[in-house]
């Protein structure tokens, strides 16, 4: 259900950007999402399509790119990937169910994930929240991508 809030955040941001830049029609919005948030793409797209009407995004398509973050432990220096903490993530999902904390707030990752080598919570992730990575607009009949 949280996907609806994410879609709203994306739409409001892009609509504001379009208004500020006098863009009347957006063709595509490319969104980056940390993979460990386990957002449901189908629900996200359904929410996006439902809420985008009557705006410059009326005909826009949503492209979702899941990003596997690289983590770095600031305590022991280990760099590790999602597969190294997969068991921790599964245990967390098992405990909380659908609305598990990292689904709602990926920035909570250091609270719930530990460095697999030293056990520290002092970890940083390269990608820790939703990003708008590109907007494709229709200008004078040609498509332009804004990064």
């Amino acid at each position, binding site marked *: *259900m949280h996907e*609806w809030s994410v879609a709203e955040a994306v739409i409001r941001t892009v609509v504001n950007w379009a208004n500020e830049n006098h863009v009347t029609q957006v063709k595509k919005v490319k969104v980056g999402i940390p993979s460990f948030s386990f957002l449901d793409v189908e629900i996200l797209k359904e929410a996006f399509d439902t809420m985008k009407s009557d705006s410059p995004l009326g005909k826009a398509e949503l492209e979702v790119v899941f990003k596997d973050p690289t983590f770095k432990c600031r305590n022991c220096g280990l760099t590790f990937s999602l597969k190294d903490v997969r068991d921790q993530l599964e245990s967390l999902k098992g405990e909380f169910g659908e609305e598990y*904390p990292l689904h*709602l*707030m990926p920035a909570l990752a250091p609270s719930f994930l530990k460095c697999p080598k030293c056990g520290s919570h002092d970890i940083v992730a390269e990608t820790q929240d939703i990003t708008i990575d590109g907007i494709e607009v229709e200008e004078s009949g040609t498509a332009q991508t804004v990064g």
Partner: protein
Amino acid sequence: MEPLRQLAKEKLRGKKAIAVMSAKGGVGKSLVSALLALSLRGAVLVDLDVHTMATTKLFGLEGKLHEVTKKGIEPFKLGELGVVSLGGIVKDKYVVLPGGNAGEVMESLVAYANLGDANYVVFDLPPGLGDEVLTLERLTDFFPVVVTTPSAVSVKVVEYVMRYLNERGKRPLLVVNMAYMDCGDGKVARPFGDLKNAEDLAKRYNAPVVELPIDPSLESYIGKIHEYDGVVKGKVKKELVPYLT
């Protein structure tokens, strides 16, 4: 482009944001936040103290999870009051976060909360001048309620916040919590010192002062603070609320 920040800003648009803050811990920010939010009509209390989440303890919400709907994180309802806390996301798990993450979590909490048609959003901030203050400044033009006790050390530490707010062009309200105890027959005891230090501080920053009394019975309302209707709440209603409405 920052989608979370954008959504958080829009959620707060048109609402009066009140930040209950202090440079000092243990002065009663969460209690003042709770009693203030309970005294305002149409308020949502947002617990931005993401490390301690005292609000859930005050209202007896420990271990409860927020419902998440298409409209976002649904506040816990206590009568007319809505309460949003990270405690409703992480249950009883401790929260340990590097600085930057704490700001993002606070922004997420505001962005995803369903604030509905609330007139007031009361923010309970952690002590100090960290990410929480900077985050809130990015989101909205809040009204600061600064809490201290009469103690000289508390007042001296709280001056950092007053000075900062002054430099940011804000005129806070100073609440002196645990200022006195009513002993009956018109007698008042001031176990944490007289009001002079706090009054001098308020004068230096042209801030109105509200004194709140000590009420030992408050302790028995921890976990059900919404049921408390004693002298401290009476003073909050009578003297604090008029500054904010």
